[in-house]
């Protein structure tokens, strides 16, 4: 079993691999990938492609394949979420809302292509799982936004992506693009289970921006389930969510 946590892209990233064939090289390969993504997309690095694009030093056609792919996926997501997902804010692009899930997805794929079966990649609480841990499926706790030492639900899952969007932590903000100055206060966290972390993450972000209606949006998406916690300490979940809940 190999497990490591590193601080990259401004968040702790943890990778655990249970295959007996796992080596340090597998971990390094996945972490190096996150490092590369950060260098391309970080809006906090003046030298990143995204910063140069925002300063007008690069045109989209001059950007790398990765940047053009992310811009295309962002536009696709914007359309699929009726404009609730939007990387453009105050005239500049910040694709971090889509890059994270996309990077976790690709890092996990690198492990799969290396022949590994049982692992997870967790970047700041957004997770791709594959296979299982020891004799059970991966158990993922949904953190209580009122008390971060507690979980309010335990999922038992494999080969899915699990993403949570929320405002449990001050300083993080997801805003409604249609009302950018109004803080989202009535819901605290929205967890989405989807076919992979890229899909789960982008829809969790967009649905969170919709406020209370977001869980309805997830209900209507085939292949996705959601668990929303509101400011009244009540949870609302979609019709197929319970099949992911660990039965004790």
């Amino acid at each position, binding site marked *: 079993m190999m497990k490591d946590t590193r601080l990259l892209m401004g968040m702790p990233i943890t990778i655990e691999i249970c295959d007996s064939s796992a080596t340090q090289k597998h971990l390094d390969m996945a972490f190096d990938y996150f490092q590369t993504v950060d260098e391309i997309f970080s809006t906090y*690095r003046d030298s990143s492609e995204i910063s140069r694009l925002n300063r007008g030093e690069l045109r989209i056609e001059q950007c790398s394949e990765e940047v053009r792919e992310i811009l295309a996926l962002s536009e696709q997501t914007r359309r699929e979420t009726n404009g609730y997902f939007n990387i453009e804010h105050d005239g500049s692009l910040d694709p971090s809302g889509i890059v994270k899930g996309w990077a976790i997805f690709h890092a996990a794929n690198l492990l799969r292509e290396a022949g590994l079966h049982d692992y997870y990649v967790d970047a700041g609480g957004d997770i791709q799982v594959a296979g299982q841990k020891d004799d059970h499926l991966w158990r993922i706790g949904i953190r209580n*936004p009122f008390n971060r030492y507690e979980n309010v639900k335990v999922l038992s899952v494999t080969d899915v992506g699990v993403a949570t969007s929320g405002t449990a932590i001050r300083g993080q903000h997801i805003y409604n693009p249609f009302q950018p100055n109004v803080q989202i206060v009535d819901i605290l966290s929205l967890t989405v289970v989807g076919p992979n972390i890229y899909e789960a993450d982008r829809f969790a972000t967009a649905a969170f921006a919709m406020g209370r209606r977001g869980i*309805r949006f997830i209900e209507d998406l085939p292949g996705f389930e959601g668990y929303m916690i509101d400011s009244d300490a009540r949870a609302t979940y979609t019709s197929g969510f319970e099949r992911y809940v660990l039965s004790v």
Partner: protein
Amino acid sequence: MRKVTVAAVIIGVFIIYSLLYHQSNASALPPLASNNTRPATSVPTATPPIAASGTSPTSTTTPTHYKDGSYTGSVADAQWGYVQVKAVVKNGKIVDVQWVQYPNDRSRSIMINQYADPQLTSEAIQAQSAQVDIVTGATDSSMAFIQSLSDALTSAKA
């Protein structure tokens, strides 16, 4: 007269029933958030600069080797309270990041709002004790978190 008595009994039973029903319902919704003392103000903190690798970008991550032990970071001011983290290092690797201090800053609304939608189910959240392998939650990218963690890791390298 008899009708009046019967009516009074029925009304009385109904009142008692509804009181009991109301009470059992109220107790079925245990408040989960235990110690939220600070009122939630709606002042967002500034977006923190991602300090992951604030030094000059390199193309590969050098695997860092830390000394085994637990390292507690500095107490960092997150504006809405103080945070402090502890990094646990085993065999040269970070195996856990724990919170030493974290403010409970959510005030709980007393209004219970049922979500009316036939396909969706609503419940009061409840703490679970089952062991988990991973936790999903909103990203902690606050400047104070990164500051305290970086500090803990600096002592782990020394």
